[in-house]
């Protein structure tokens, strides 16, 4: 369970997040939505311990989140993973990163670690890519590799920051289907997204954020009016079929 207790975050006096107070129960598929600049990525960075100078507190499984994170990694897919396109790493190398915290300092990956990583790539539909250099992968293929890495942590939480941003349209549904399978195994999925239409058929809990919370409740209890309030007057819900 993840609890945000009255979290406030400012940069140079400018408020980025205000009075964030909500709970994510285990096993939820959470979508965090809101317009650009709403503080969605910042909220995720606070949860991951990448930003620490905020007010309030965040609890994970009853512990202060920093304390919890010292013992457990969280499976995380950033919006854009920054790396040199020529970096000589294969998809397998990147997936193995998810197992690194289980190995003691200086210890190398074993044959069974490599097999586990290949299995995880298979779950994410990327087994054929394990020898490919990461610079040669498409956005969608790379996201699958990152998802395989996240799964290998065995963390009960998988956090994604706009995973659909680097995937082409047909690939988005396939990616969310994999997320649905992972969610069915009992993991808590927390994803930021702009694609409300696609998300509505997958997520169970919606967090509408625009610096402050506009709503946080079960997906089927959220009405269009609240979403419109979150995104502003210019937002219109359009029904789309893929």
């Amino acid at each position, binding site marked *: 369970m993840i609890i945000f207790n009255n979290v406030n975050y400012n940069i140079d006096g400018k408020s980025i997040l205000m009075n964030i107070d909500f709970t994510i129960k285990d096993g939820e598929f959470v979508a965090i939505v809101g317009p650009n600049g709403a503080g969605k990525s910042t909220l995720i960075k606070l949860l*991951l*311990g*990448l930003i620490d100078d905020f007010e309030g507190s965040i609890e994970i499984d009853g512990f202060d989140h920093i304390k919890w*994170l*010292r013992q*457990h*990694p*969280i499976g*995380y897919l*950033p919006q854009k*993973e*920054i*790396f*040199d396109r*020529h*970096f*000589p*790493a294969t998809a397998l*190398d*990147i997936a193995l*990163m*998810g197992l*690194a*915290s289980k*190995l003691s*300092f*200086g*210890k*190398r*990956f074993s044959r069974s670690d490599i097999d586990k990583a290949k299995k995880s790539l298979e779950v994410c539909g990327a087994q054929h890519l394990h020898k490919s*250099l990461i610079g040669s992968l498409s956005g969608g293929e790379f996201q699958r590799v990152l998802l395989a*890495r996240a799964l290998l*942590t065995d963390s009960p939480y998988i956090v994604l920051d706009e995973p659909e941003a680097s995937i082409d349209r047909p690939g988005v549904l396939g990616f969310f289907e994999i997320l649905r399978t992972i969610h069915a195994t009992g993991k808590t999925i927390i994803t930021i997204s702009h694609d409300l239409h696609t998300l509505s058929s997958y997520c169970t809990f919606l967090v509408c954020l625009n610096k402050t919370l506009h709503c946080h409740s079960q997906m089927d209890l959220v009405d269009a009016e609240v979403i419109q309030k979150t995104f502003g007057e210019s937002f219109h819900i359009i029904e789309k079929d893929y």
Partner: protein
Amino acid sequence: MIYNFIIYAFLGCVLSGISLALFSPFVTLRKISYMGEALSHIAFAGIALALFFGLNIHITTLLFVVIISLLIGIVSKRFKLDEANAITIFLSVSMSIGIILISLKNNYTFDLASYLFGNVLLIGKADIVQLVILSAVNLFFILFVYKELFYLTYNAEIAGVYRIRVKLVNYLFLILLAVNIVINLKIAGIILVSAQLILPAVIAFNIAKRFTWAIVIGVLVSMISAGIGFLLSWYFNLPTGASIVVFEFCIFVLTLTFKRKHN
């Protein structure tokens, strides 16, 4: 008859190349190749400080470089100053302090050319032992924390989220880099130290697609360049450091054509 000092000079160049080339892929991919140049310049102030107060050059320079490196980290983080700007500020201040100290010591004439290109003919048996130990320590360090170094080089922030101990490895890496620069500075000089930290990896990545192969090829390239560059300088009576850099650059150009063909 080949004199001992020539053998020492030859071995010194090759070993210096090995020690720096081992760090080269990490420095190049992390895009911190400017660190080599910056730390060499900062070391200059350390040398001047040791000469001015009559202290041990190696220890004083090393301490000075480590302290300034830590200061750069603290100042840029605390005052939200861009790290590249902080490095440039400390680099120019260090150089200036060094020059002031040397000018104050009126009776001491400092050979700037030797500082820029090193002086291989001054290499003694003790230097060779030091370089062998340094290369062995570098190799052990890379082999021992390869996994951590690999992911630190890939993306330090993400590696941190995945609970890889990149902070500790990064500190060890930077301290060892500083030690390498200080020890190699006397032998190789600023220009060769900077070149040996960048060129071996850039050449290796033109040929190799895997990280481990890039390390091996980088070390080989560095050894060959140092050896042949030294022999050419001896035969044609040219400056050694400069000859090594030019020879290595020729290999770089050759591998560029190889890379173009394969792309």
